Structure formats: structure tokens, C-alpha cells
């Protein structure tokens, strides 16, 4: 078995991917592009792969449901220890239905930064319709349409928001596109 490569230029591409992730988290609901050159093994798609190449390493226990081929790829390129349960992971990748938010590490009131970041591969992301996002990073409101999230997600998100500053931050990945929901954002229904 041969593994497809990671970033062709690791220093520059990690920096560019980081800036795309940072832009996504700073401007929740605005869609950014990253990972265009990557060919990760299925079901892993370029955006989620780029996020993990950029952020994951030996210090970030990872849980994922992406199967053996993706696992080998991630182990080789990121070297993250495997988390036994989603709740023990710092980074959680869901290619299928994500684990319940309440089962992930939300950090503590004193150290809310110790929370997990959840990557969810979704079918589609589009600006201009869908949720009416409000909160830090948004001047008035950003609209974001997400295809492929389970129907429980908005209610779970609102439940998590009541625990702020504890909470999981979510990166929604579709192909080479990414949008972020940092924990403080309200998802007004469209």
C-alpha cells in the first residue's frame, strides 16, 4: 500500500491552510477554501485532510470514523495518538454522523480552551440562505446553508451554548470548502 502525499510544500501550505481556518473561525459562516492539492484516501476529503495536516500532531489525541485507509494516512502524516472514545479526543473527525456534542470534551470554566474541535464532513456549504448566524465575527448576520448535518444538531448546539464558555468548536468541511461555528455563535433558523 502506498500513501498519497500530504502537503507538497508543508511550511507554506500549512500556513495557508491555517489562515483559511482562522478566517473561517473569525468570520463564522463565511466559506473558505483549502486543501485543493490533496488526494487523501476516501472517505477523507481535502478540506478536512488539510485541517488535520495543519493542526494535528502528537499533542492532539484524534478520534475519527474514517476507516483504516484514512487512519493509516493520518497516522503517517500527523502522528496523532488515537483516542479511545470521542470524549477523550482533542480533535474529532466525523465523516458520517457526528457523535453527540454532549459526549465531547467541552473544557472547563477555568480552561474552556481545553475543549475538542469537531470536524464534520458535510455534503454541501452555501452562503446566502439557511441559518442566520449572529455573534462575534459577524457584523449583522451571516447566512449559511449546511447540507448533510443530522437534524438534532441545532438543538444540541443551543444546549451547548448555555454552557459557554465551555463548548466544542465545529469546523464544517465539504470537499475543499470550510465554514466554522465557534461555540459562541447563535444559529437563528432561516
Amino acid at each position: 500500500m502506498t500513501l498519497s502525499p500530504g502537503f507538497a510544500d508543508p511550511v507554506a501550505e500549512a500556513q495557508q491552510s491555517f489562515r483559511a481556518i482562522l478566517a473561517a473561525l473569525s468570520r463564522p459562516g463565511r466559506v473558505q477554501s483549502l486543501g485543493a492539492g490533496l488526494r487523501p484516501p476516501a472517505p477523507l476529503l481535502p478540506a478536512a485532510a488539510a485541517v488535520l495536516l495543519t493542526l494535528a500532531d502528537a499533542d492532539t489525541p484524534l478520534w475519527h470514523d474514517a476507516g483504516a485507509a484514512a487512519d493509516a494516512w493520518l497516522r503517517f502524516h500527523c502522528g496523532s495518538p488515537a483516542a479511545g472514545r470521542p470524549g477523550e479526543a482533542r480533535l474529532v473527525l466525523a465523516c458520517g454522523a457526528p457523535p453527540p456534542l454532549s459526549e465531547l470534551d467541552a473544557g472547563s470554566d477555568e480552561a474552556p480552551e481545553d475543549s475538542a474541535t469537531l470536524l464534520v464532513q458535510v455534503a454541501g456549504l452555501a452562503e446566502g440562505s439557511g441559518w442566520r448566524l449572529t455573534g462575534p465575527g459577524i457584523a449583522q448576520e451571516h447566512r449559511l446553508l449546511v447540507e448533510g448535518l443530522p437534524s438534532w444538531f441545532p438543538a444540541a448546539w443551543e444546549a451547548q451554548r448555555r454552557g459557554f464558555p465551555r463548548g466544542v468548536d465545529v469546523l464544517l468541511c465539504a470537499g475543499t470548502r470550510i465554514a466554522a461555528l465557534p461555540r459562541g455563535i447563535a444559529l437563528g433558523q432561516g
Partner: protein
Amino acid sequence: MTETGYNFAYLDEATKRMIRRAILKAVAIPGHQVPFGGREMPLPYGWGTGGIQVTASLIGRDDVLKVIDQGADDTTNAVSIRRFFARVAGVATTERTAAATIIQTRHRIPETPLREGQILVYQVPMPEPLFRLEPRVAETRRLHALADYGLMQVKLYEDIARLGHVGLSYNYPVMVNHRYLMSPSPIPAFDNPKMHRMPALQVFGAGREKRIYAVPPYTAVHSLDFEDHPFRPIRADARCALCGSDASYLDEVVTDDAGGRLFVCSDTDYCGERQARQRRGEAA
């Protein structure tokens, strides 16, 4: 050309990843201080190592970097930091606020309003807004967790009772997104209102104290005050001797030993642009 023997932007990739994760969490929890494994830098602690580590983790080959200290691009420490990044990252630098993608600053926010897509990186000596009232780090963490800022309210109230108004003129504490009390770093209180709903991302790096915090674009930042004693920014009641600005923050320059003094803009780019426009005969 970058200096050989060191990685792009000096830091190794593992350190950048650690700092990048901290920055992302800081953005997700506006105003909360995220501890990070700050590294020794080749510049002394207290001289901008936090800002430098943040900038080194953000910067790419396409960025244009501006560095200011006291509002000026040509102060010695700003020159030193700009030279550092030119040396280890080979990036383009500028003195023009409008042309920069990343602006690293010590003690000022530029007068020219920042726009979306720009990042303002602050050098922070003491990230903890409560440290003069409670020096214990473990205790201030608890107070932030509880959003218990009574200590600061009492301090400001005592100032008003004694002096008639709040005695702070710089490093004036702010509430971020109605949740976290935050040190704006030692910028003059004059600059505080610029932080409120700023279109640019603001990231704060404290190297010695090993903390990173952030304010996302368009986030509410309120200077602490009381209804009957509203926050008031302080500025010398004068015009700039070079460009005539009556709105910018001014440095006072002592010109002789007989009480002579004049005032000039602290923001050298803002002042220079205004003078250039005046020379071209445009309205300043």
C-alpha cells in the same frame, strides 16, 4: 532571502502548530486568555516575544508586515522586530497602515481605520487585567471562570470617589462580548473605542506570561465605566505641529528647558500621509 539555518519565520513547525491551535481557541472564546507553550525567542521577554510568536505563526510569503511601537514605524524596537521578520521570513514590509495585511503593535492602534482581512497583533506585557488587584494567577483564573469582576468595579468606584473620575489613562480594562474582562495591552485609553466592532481581527500575544487572546472582527468591546461617569478617552488638547490634526493621539515634545513644548502625531504613517496630501493640495 531568509536567514539560513532557521525555519521560515524562525519557529519550528511543531511550535507553530501549538500556537495556531491556541490562536483558534482564543478566537472562539473572545477575550479569554489561552495559555500556550511560549518559547524562548532571540529577543528578550517584555520586548515583544508574544507578539512575535503570534506573527511568526500567522505570517506567510504573501503577507505585508507593518511593525509599530508607540505608533511609529521607526522607533528602535519596531525597527528591530521588522528586521527580524525580514531576515527570518523574507516578507515584504511596509510603513503604510492601509497596505499591511499584518500589523504588529506595541502600545497603539493606528489612526487609519483597519479593514476586514487585516490582523492586528498586540505585544502584551501583562495579559491579566486584574493583576494589580490580585497577583495570584490561580485566583484570577477562578475569577474569570465566574465572570466575577467585582474587584475591578470597586477599584474604579474608589477612583471616582477619590479623584472624581477613573484614574486609569492607559491599559484601561475592557469587557469583550459582555463576558470576559480583558487587558487591551498598554494602549492609551484614547485607543480603546477603536477596538469596538473593529473589522480587523485582533490577536494579543504575551510571551513571558505565555498567554494568547483575541477579539474577532465586529465584536463588542466596552471600556468599563459607570452610567454617571462614562468612559472618556484622554488626548492632549492641541493640534499636531506637523499635519495639523486635531483628532489624532499626540506625543508631547519638550523643545527647550523654558517650558516650550509642541505636539506631534504619535502615528507617523497617519501624519505623513496627511502631510503628503496637504503638499498635493488635497483636503486633508
